[in-house]
């Protein structure tokens, strides 16, 4: 699965994207955030306030209780400030 990071999430993680293969127990977006947070200080920092983080699966906004099964592209980012 491709995981993308944007804005300050990208800056904190230190990369824009990576290919990851989380274990089967990582079922939802929230699970994925928890799993990522344990991969290192940069991830722990990026996801220190998980409720603030927005997520998209395959380019659609999703809630954190959404299942990630079958996802090709998961993205994490702060609340949007476009327009």
């Amino acid at each position: 699965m491709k995981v993308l990071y944007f804005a300050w999430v990208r800056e904190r993680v230190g990369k824009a994207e990576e290919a990851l293969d989380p274990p089967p127990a990582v079922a939802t977006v929230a699970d994925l955030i928890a799993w990522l947070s344990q991969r290192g200080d940069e991830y722990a920092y990026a996801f220190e306030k998980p409720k603030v983080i927005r997520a998209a699966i395959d380019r659609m906004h999703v809630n954190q209780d959404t299942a990630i099964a079958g996802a090709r592209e998961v993205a994490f980012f702060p609340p949007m400030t476009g327009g």
Partner: protein
Amino acid sequence: MTVPVTIRLQKEDFDVAREVAALSRGRTDIGAVVSFSGICRSDKADGEGDAIAALVLEHYPGMAEEEIARHAEEAVSRWPITGLTVIHRFGRIAPGDNIVLVVTASAHREAAFHAAEFLMDYLKTRAPFWKREEGSSGSSWVDAHDRDDTAAARWAKS
């Protein structure tokens, strides 16, 4: 009849007049064209500190187009509009320069106004763009506004 919808993400500036004209030229069924231009201000979003030198807009390529297209489609289904255009710039934008343009055309003014406001409220809260302010003392990401969420919430269907 298919409603012409134009969505463009670009680094370059846009021309309001050209986009307004493109929606109405050669047609006599359009009574109202509303345009909204979002422009880079020099004051910081939080109202504190020095003037900004520039905004840098990051976006999620692919999703940004698709998300805007979904809301454009929704606008077309909710209001009797005869055409709409959304242009959102990304990259570095100086104070006074354009950021975003929404143009809506309709037989009647209410539809054109409502569709333009709807699209702007959704661009602010749902389109995957993030603004960073560059100033003399460094740069920082702009926080999302609760009032933008409130503005977008009024369009939710019950």
